[in-house]
């Protein structure tokens, strides 16, 4: 056992875990029982929470990191990776989640932000982070801070996919625009995007984000999941959409199959049948501007 023990916490193992989650579905769960249902349905990971976004939205008040007892119970109940959310900028909640042994931390706008100017310095942690974005600049700022995975934000807890679509299209359009720029134009582009120049240059050269990008927020049906995959996402997070529906286990399995076979309409049609009630959706225009979670993060 005296040979090189290996190096932990490298950016390659942080981004690498996200690579292993691609083509998969990450499901929000609030109990160990729900985590087992998610694992049995073929989830690639679970997000442990105290309340799903639809309930956070309904309850109002300040939403915080889940109680460590809940997180530990979920960690102990499944063999797939477990993620957990900390508030934006709340690096002590992040330290606690790392000490609890979670596999990924989501610095999430679903919770009430703890800092309205600064996000967590994610380079300081050996556990990887996933962060939300609405556009390319926001994605690259988070990656510059050390995020090893991003997710294009929808509007959480609504069952309405329109915002998720808007934001993946925004990211894709901005990547396409960078591809067409000359090298001297990239400096001004970095200034406009408010993003680190070296990351802007990498995206222009490679035509994609440097880390895995999932879709999150507003996905309620197998067709929603396949839509986000066809629009170029690497996988999907499903929050309230599963355990706020009539038959969570069946819907979860259906969303998993639709995410794998996202280009096969015959399979998506088959798995979309008889899923019971979908969660009740909310129109984005009915949410007061101050209560839109997607607008948190800077």
């Amino acid at each position, binding site marked *: 056992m005296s040979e090189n023990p290996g190096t*932990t916490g490298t950016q390659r193992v942080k981004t690498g875990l996200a690579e292993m989650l691609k083509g998969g579905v990450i499901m929000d769960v609030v109990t160990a029982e729900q985590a087992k249902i998610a694992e049995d349905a073929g989830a690639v990971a679970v997000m442990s929470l105290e309340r799903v976004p639809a309930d956070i939205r309904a309850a109002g008040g300040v939403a915080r990191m889940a109680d460590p007892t809940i997180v530990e119970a979920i960690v102990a109940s499944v063999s797939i990776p477990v993620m957990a959310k900390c508030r934006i900028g709340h690096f002590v909640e992040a330290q606690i989640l790392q000490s609890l042994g979670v596999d990924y931390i989501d610095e999430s706008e679903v919770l009430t932000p703890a800092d309205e100017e600064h996000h967590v310095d994610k380079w300081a942690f050996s556990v990887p982070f996933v962060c939300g974005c609405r556009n390319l600049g926001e994605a690259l700022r988070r990656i510059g801070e050390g995020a090893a995975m991003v997710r294009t934000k929808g509007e959480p807890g609504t069952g309405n996919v329109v915002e998720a679509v808007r934001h993946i299209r925004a990211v894709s359009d901005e990547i396409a625009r960078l591809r067409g720029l000359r090298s001297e134009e990239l400096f001004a582009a970095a200034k406009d995007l408010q993003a680190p120049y070296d990351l802007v240059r990498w995206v222009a050269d490679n035509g994609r984000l440097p880390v895995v990008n999932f879709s999150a927020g507003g996905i309620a049906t197998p067709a929603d999941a396949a839509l986000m995959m066809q629009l170029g996402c690497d996988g999907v997070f499903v929050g309230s959409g599963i355990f706020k529906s009539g038959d969570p286990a069946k819907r979860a399995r259906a969303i998993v199959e639709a995410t794998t076979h996202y280009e096969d309409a015959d399979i998506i049609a088959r798995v979309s049948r008889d899923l019971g009630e979908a969660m009740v959706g909310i129109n984005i225009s009915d949410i007061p501007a101050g209560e839109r979670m997607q607008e948190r993060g800077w």
Partner: protein
Amino acid sequence: MAGSVRVGVLALQGAFREHILSLEALGVEAVAVRLPDQLEGCAGLIIPGGESTAIGKLMTSYGFYEALCTAHDQGMAIWGTCAGAILLARRVLDALPDQRTLELMDIAVRRNAYGRQVDSFEAELTVGGVAGAPFPGVFIRAPWIEETGPSVEVLATHGGRTVAAREGRLLATTFHPELTGDPRIHGFFVDTVVGS
């Protein structure tokens, strides 16, 4: 290298795109396999890293267990990386009660053997059949190979544990060559394992 061989990559979930790019960089025709009939004409198949439970359930839903065993019987080589190595194994230690594998390779594999994600690591490896500098090993929530049968050749160890092994037309690695840009193990699979 490799001539006109076609190699499939099981594309149900996980890092299949990186394997396809690695094969294409060697000039090998690579195809994403999402349904069993897409195995037609593949001399080899890579089962990528991902979540073994998620990939396993999708394999059950679409009849891949039978299809892969039949194709292997008829000569198809299979390489499993990480989750793929678990799916090849005859026995999984610490498996979920209903977890099913192909049971093709005479190895016993322990899931998440090193711990959780904070224990994921990189280490240089000496790999049998791979010449030159040490190979960059990327271990992500990796299993290890705890037992090997008499016909299994150990190709690499780390910390006293087997991390790469071969048995005839089967190859198992518990780490991720597809994340490194180093094509040597893909070359070994195509030239030596598929070609055998």
